[in-house]
């Protein structure tokens, strides 16, 4: 009998600690499945951020280290110098990457560091209990903007793909969403492309994965998916923001 589904060796056989309906698990799985399919599991070094996914190394079956809040791109730059032939990635949330770690991500991208960044954007600080993130939408409620984010107080949410795409260093930047099976398949293709470009030495690769946080959004998992599809994707348009491979063609 032909198996229709097998568990990837990329994920350790343990339950994740993420909330029901959270898409961290999906994001973990498509990244690790991709590495597994590409035969790279024993050849990859990952960097976990601060945030809910600080424990990513408990689930992802590759050599990993933690990074202090926001510093994963600096840590990965250090790793890359020691192991020029390995696959290196960081996995970072929006508080980590777009707020406290803005300096590190911009400079890593500008240097064209040859590693891949998976940016989980759920528009909120999850681990600390639902505070406003730089990516929280205008009007969205959080524990530090209980009546909703206002432009007057916090400005407009940051669009990181668009921002990084202004730099010459990145080889590939795409924003994907994890709100439906079809889009998850598309997201996995983006992940694969990021690794392929990295291995080909093309430069810095960046995939933003729009994600849900039902707990801190105060929504059920299905409603969170609906919100992501309708509201979040409207402010953060999906698509390819940079692709030097394509430009070359």
């Amino acid at each position, binding site marked *: 009998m032909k198996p229709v589904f097998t568990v990837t060796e990329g994920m350790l056989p343990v339950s994740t600690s993420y909330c029901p309906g959270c898409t961290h698990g999906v994001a973990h799985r498509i990244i690790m499945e991709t590495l597994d399919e590409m035969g790279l599991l*024993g*050849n*990859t*070094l990952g*960097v*976990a951020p601060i945030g809910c996914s*600080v*424990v990513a*190394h408990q689930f992802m*079956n*590759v*050599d*990993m*280290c*933690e*990074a*202090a809040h926001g*510093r994963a791109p*600096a*840590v*990965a*730059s*250090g*790793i*890359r*110098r*020691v*192991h*020029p*032939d*390995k*696959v290196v990635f960081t996995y970072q949330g929006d508080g980590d990457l777009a707020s406290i770690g803005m*300096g*590190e991500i*911009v*400079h890593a991208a500008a240097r064209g560091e040859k590693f891949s960044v998976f940016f989980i954007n759920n528009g909120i600080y999850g681990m600390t209990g639902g505070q406003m993130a730089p990516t929280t939408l205008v009007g969205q409620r959080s524990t530090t903007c209980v009546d909703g984010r206002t432009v007057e107080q916090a400005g407009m949410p940051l669009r990181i793909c668009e921002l990084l795409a202004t730099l010459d260093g990145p080889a590939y930047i795409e924003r994907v969403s994890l709100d439906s099976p079809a889009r998850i398949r598309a997201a996995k293709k983006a992940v694969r492309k990021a690794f392929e470009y990295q291995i080909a030495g093309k430069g810095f690769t960046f995939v933003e994965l729009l994600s849900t946080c039902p707990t801190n959004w105060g929504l059920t998992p299905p409603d969170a998916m609906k919100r992501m599809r309708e509201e979040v994707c409207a402010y953060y348009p999906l698509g390819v923001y940079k692709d030097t491979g394509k430009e070359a063609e």
Partner: protein
Amino acid sequence: MSEKVLMKGNEAFAEAVIRGGVRFYFGYPITPQSEIPEFMSRELPKRGGRFLQAESELGAINMAYGCGAAGGQCFISSSSPGIALMQEGMSFLCGAEVPVTLLNVSRGGPGIGSIQPGQADYNQVTRGGGNGDYRIPVFAPASIQEAVDILYEAPSIADRYRNPVMVLADGLMGQMMEPVMLPEEKHAFTSEEISTAKPWAISGSKKGTRSVVKSLRLQPEVLEEHVEHLFEKYAVMEKELERVECEGLEDAEVVFVAFGTMARLAREAMELLEARGIKAGLIRPISLWPYPYSAFDRISPRTKAVVSVELSMGQMLQDINLGVKDRVPVRLIHRVGGMLPTSIEVVEKTMKILEEVR
């Protein structure tokens, strides 16, 4: 091959760590140590290493952490305000047990302070400005030769204990030139050798086992156990890394305590005092942590005063008092802000102190 050369302190420091096996450097320019990133940017690529100018000291210490976690022999340097910015990283390095060699070519503070020499980082480096229970061994050489010898050895000390090691030099030593014997170059690990030389490191090249380098331990009992483990390690370091040089303690009327350049100044003051018929001794802590408290037990009953000579408002006094244990009056001779005392000034102030305690 070892060779005698005349080098500026900063360049000698950099050459020493390369000869000690370092192949990776991450740095950010700051006076008075910018010759180090300049030297590394020229030398490391020629010697099979990598140099990267970081976007900030925050970037630099975290690159060093990544490099060290990946098994690379890594060195970073900065000066006082830059070291302050790196404190989070130092706590992280200790928690995650990642070896890195650090150099602080210190200057005056607080704040941006001045670019002239200072020793007011004593508390920052010996007590640690980062969060949590951790310790970093700190060595304070008094000559370029001693700095070279310590920096040559530092990467292997860091590896032995899986802990960062810091060398504290003042701006004066960084800018000074002095003939120095450079030691023979050690073997530097290649990326391929890391998985066997440092099996704990993340190298992505082990079959069947997985490495995780981390400082987060969310369960209190697990973190407690980890911190206890760290402190067992620090207890061993306290036994093995204490270094001190004592001179003329037997019959000294006054004993100076000083490290780095100030120890050399104190030594000259000793000679000048001797010409005036006053015997002076010197305790020169080479390791500031572990601090050589037991050296103070060797102070003679004849001694009337212990005098700390420092470029700070007396940050070392706390340790000196712990060593002296109220047996002798402890006094301070200091200059700050980048001002340097002269040996004559130290002699005159010492004469006053002796009058006062007699």
